[in-house]
């Protein structure tokens, strides 16, 4: 065949390209690094911004920047690990009218679909379940590759009233606001 002489350099070029570090585009991020991840929250209490965090949560995710639409994630937050800043409040929010932690120990977010918005920005549509109530939420996130690790960061607002977080005397939003900003940073290492 007369094509043979032109095919050889092409194969060579492809082999070289595959060997270069930037071409490792098949990386899939799925090993969550708990110590480099955080989930925090903030809300308004009589005009004062209050914040806190959850000390324990687990996340399973798989994300390939080349195929974001195939990505999925499940995050389980251990509600008993809440840190509101005071022991009295930590105890209070575990109670029936707040999270009712003994009956509903975890909050879960599960993705249904992931959309790339360009410029490292993504949108994960999914379901958030807290205290036995499930709501559809859209969570915007950015993805940054940092060496072997990938960092997902984002924030969204949930309305505590949608999940009956704070019932009875707390049901009104004049002292503790309805909107709660959830902020997250999840670090995952690339696997094979």
């Amino acid at each position, binding site marked *: 065949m007369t094509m043979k002489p032109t095919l050889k350099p092409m194969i060579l070029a492809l082999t070289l390209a595959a060997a270069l570090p930037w071409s490792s585009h098949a990386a899939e991020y799925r090993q969550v690094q708990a110590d480099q991840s955080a989930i925090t929250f903030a809300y308004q*209490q*009589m*005009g*004062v*911004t*209050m*914040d806190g965090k959850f000390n324990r949560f687990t996340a399973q995710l798989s994300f390939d920047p080349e195929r974001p639409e195939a990505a999925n994630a499940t995050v389980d937050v251990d509600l008993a690990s809440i840190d509101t*800043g*005071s022991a*009295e*409040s930590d105890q*209070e929010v575990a109670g029936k009218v707040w999270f009712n932690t003994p009956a509903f120990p975890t909050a879960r977010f599960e993705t249904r679909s992931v959309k790339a918005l360009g410029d490292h920005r993504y949108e994960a549509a999914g379901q958030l379940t807290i205290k036995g109530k499930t709501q559809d939420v859209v969570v915007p996130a950015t993805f940054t590759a940092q060496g072997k690790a990938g960092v997902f960061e984002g924030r969204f607002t949930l309305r505590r009233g949608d999940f009956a977080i704070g019932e009875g*005397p*707390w049901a*009104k939003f*004049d*002292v*503790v606001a309805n909107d709660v900003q959830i902020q997250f940073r999840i670090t995952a290492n690339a696997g094979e």
Partner: protein
Amino acid sequence: MTTHYTPVAKALHWLIALLLFGLLALGFYMQDLPLSPQKLQLYAWHKWAGVTVFLLVLVRLAWRVTHRPPPLPEHMPRVMQLAAHAGHVLLYALMIAIPLSGWLMSSAKGFQTVWFGVLPIPDLLDKNRELGDLLQTVHLSLNLFFVVVLIGHIGAALKHHFIDRDDVLTRMLPARNLEP
């Protein structure tokens, strides 16, 4: 010779006195309440009133250093005069230190003070549970000390009025029958 405090000094004295009694009562009452929206509301009001008193005390101090108060009665022994001055210095010092300790405690506990829900007072301290608990003890101790000094202040005023029968108490009262 002035025998009365100036109307501004009197107004500040009684306004601050009224607010302080409210603050003390509210402070001791609210700390034992179970967590509820009412409790959070009371804490917010206590902090707003505390900032207000702090500012009024600053105004009062400025007035005090620019306006000489009427002198203490001649009949008072030197040592009692010194005690009276020391008591007043202590009252001023506590009226400054107590709101400061409350503000720092709020900062350390992560509850920023937003005056009347509008004006945020900067947090000088980062959130720190141990420091917050320590400052809570400081705030409480200063207040207990303040109550003791206040009892001395009121007791002394009443002694001047009913036992010494001088004008030390009346010259801080509204001037009903100001003689020329």
